[in-house]
């Protein structure tokens, strides 16, 4: 049973909040980094990746806020490549304790460790690194984007359900590829699948011309398997593997059948409405990064509305409590793991054209919340920063 008493109690104080006008300021900080080159020119990253989701979340909060005497503003800061991210974070923290941050893991922890960030509430909306939810966790840093482990576990549950138990893996050479490959291998073990073979992607030729000649031989060496997993998080080579494998096998991971926080094909549970609101605002499809920034803003909105407070400490306590729940258009209430600050969420497993399944899948049980079958669970967590807080 969830605790409803607290929510009821907190909503009582709402009258007071409604009477006084409050302005909630939220900082959005994006740290630009060079995008690695990829073979295909087909899908450039949108300029406002993540930012558009934050703007939509803010607009959603503002619509609710107008009935409660709250107004919401977003202070947007972009740090150019090679710029001083910490200085930008300090400047933003001078104006608000609430920061939504698109930055790599090491920048996130450096910001979280700033003296100015003590008592602040920071949201990671793009870094999937395992360590951030584990021994590198920070008490003032919550994670709206799923970890690599959550996505990999989601896919592994699907493979178990389909009884595709023998898997082969091709991994790219970028850090993000290796991290996701590591997560996939951990999930293969966790869900007792079998890794029959593993190869690094070694080709430096232009696969747009060569794939049909090279990929069959490259994958022939795996021998028999049920499904081919690909760790290609920057979208470089995976697309050229599909339909060129030696054995006719489904492809999953970073390509073809992909576990995602969000995708344009998600339409159930009212998601179509979020998609259309996003499209009206950004004139493009909503991505996982946009979903994470939207969820971060809505988390703040929900917490301010329910507590009637805009103090970071009060909001943090509420967000990490059993009373908090966010309607995130994924069919179940979203909440935060109190041991590491990760947003619990279902993971849609999608192709370009449809949602194939949504994890957690039926039959994967958990003594607490089924969403905790995805990613690092409390007993395995090395995160201690949340214990004393």
């Amino acid at each position: 049973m969830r605790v409803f008493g607290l929510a009821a109690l907190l909503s009582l104080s709402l009258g007071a909040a409604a009477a006084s006008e409050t302005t909630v300021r939220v900082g959005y900080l994006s740290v630009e980094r060079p995008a690695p080159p990829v073979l295909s020119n087909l899908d450039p990253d949108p300029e406002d990746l993540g930012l558009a989701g934050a703007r939509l979340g803010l607009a959603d909060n503002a619509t609710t806020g107008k009935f409660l005497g709250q107004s919401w503003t977003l202070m947007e800061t972009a740090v150019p490549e090679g710029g001083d991210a910490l200085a930008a974070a300090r400047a933003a923290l001078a104006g608000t304790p609430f920061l939504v941050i698109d930055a790599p893991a090491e920048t996130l922890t450096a910001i979280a460790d700033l003296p100015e960030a003590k008592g602040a509430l920071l949201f990671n909306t793009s870094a999937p690194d395992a360590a951030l939810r584990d021994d590198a966790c920070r008490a003032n840093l919550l994670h709206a984007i799923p970890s690599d482990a959550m996505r990999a576990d989601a896919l592994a549950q699907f493979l178990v359900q389909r009884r595709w138990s023998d898997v082969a893996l091709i991994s790219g050479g970028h850090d993000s590829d290796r991290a996701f490959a590591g997560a996939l291998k951990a999930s293969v073990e966790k869900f007792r699948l079998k890794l029959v073979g593993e190869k690094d992607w070694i080709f430096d030729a232009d696969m747009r011309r060569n794939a049909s000649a090279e990929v069959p031989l490259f994958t022939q060496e795996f021998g028999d398997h049920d499904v081919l997993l690909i760790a290609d998080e920057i979208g470089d080579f995976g697309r050229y593997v599909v339909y060129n494998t030696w054995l006719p096998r489904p492809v999953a991971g970073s390509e073809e059948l992909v576990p995602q926080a969000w995708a344009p094909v998600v339409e159930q549970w009212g998601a179509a409405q979020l998609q259309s609101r996003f499209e009206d605002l950004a004139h493009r499809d909503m991505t996982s990064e946009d979903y994470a920034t939207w969820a971060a803003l809505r988390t703040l909105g929900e917490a301010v509305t329910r507590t009637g407070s805009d103090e970071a400490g009060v909001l943090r306590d509420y967000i990490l409590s059993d009373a908090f729940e966010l309607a995130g258009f994924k069919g179940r209430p979203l909440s935060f793991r109190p041991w590491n600050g990760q947003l619990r969420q279902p993971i849609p497993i999608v192709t370009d054209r449809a949602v194939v399944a949504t994890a957690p899948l039926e039959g994967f049980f958990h003594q607490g919340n089924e969403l905790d079958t995805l990613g690092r669970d409390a007993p395995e967590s090395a995160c201690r920063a949340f214990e004393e807080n």
Partner: protein
Amino acid sequence: MLRLTAILTLLAAPALAGGEIWVTNEKDDTISVIDIDSLEVTRTIPTGERPRGITFSHDYSRVYICASDSDAVQVMDPVSGEILHDLPSGEDPEQFVLHPDDRRLYIANEDDAITTVVDTETRRVIEQIDVGIEPEGMAVSPDGKIVITTSETTNMAHWIDTESEAIFANTLVDSRPRHAEFVKDGAELWVSAEIGGTVTVFDTATQAEKAKIHFEIKGVHQDRLQPVGFELTPDGKTAFIALGPANHVAVVDAETYEVEEYLLVGRRVWHMAFDGDHSRLFTTNGVSGDVTVIDVAARKPVKTIKVGRFPWGAAFRPEGG
């Protein structure tokens, strides 16, 4: 709106032996008409795109249908099944409620965060009222003085004064409110919250929260207990509450607010309608594409009727109505 239908059908009760249940099929753009004597689909009527909310005029000479993706409320002749005309509805109408004056239709425009008030006679928009994000649930008090819009993402019930057509109160509810009804002659407002997993009971006079109904089914995770549509028996003593993906209808004592029983129905149960004498209840089951018939006195599902894809709304039409 269904409650209103219920009251009216009570007034005319002696004449009502048979009748029909009209069900909107969201993904088929049709209405399935179920004969309540044979419990079979006797007609399938084409509608605009993505039909959801459905309600009859007081004399049953017209049926109003929210054709969400056609951005219209369609007015149909229930005898011929012909569309008579469209009403200006604002974009993406999802649910609506017909005022006791039988003339004003209050429509939730889901994509626009607006409630549109339309005069069904002049076919003109009287007012558009700013509400929260994704308005959906609509209710009107029996005296016609208050209309409620619930907004799914703002998590509020907005209380609209029908004289000024303006909001006079906003009350928070749990996450994703989907359906609202005035019950017990308007003394209480009930609002279901799909993600919150609760039904909140408000005292109409003070707009204060009076009670909250919780659900628990052994073997079904708490997160799957998602209350959506509901109906109360005419004596106001028993409520039937659809629990969405939990595939059950909860039977609730409307005085103690305690759940008495859970009835297994089809998959993702949405909305429901009583027949004319309230002896049977018809639930729309979105995912399984069927309607479950519940014997109200025995509290047992007695039949499943296949309808179109994603049945959503339901409304009763008396014989010859």
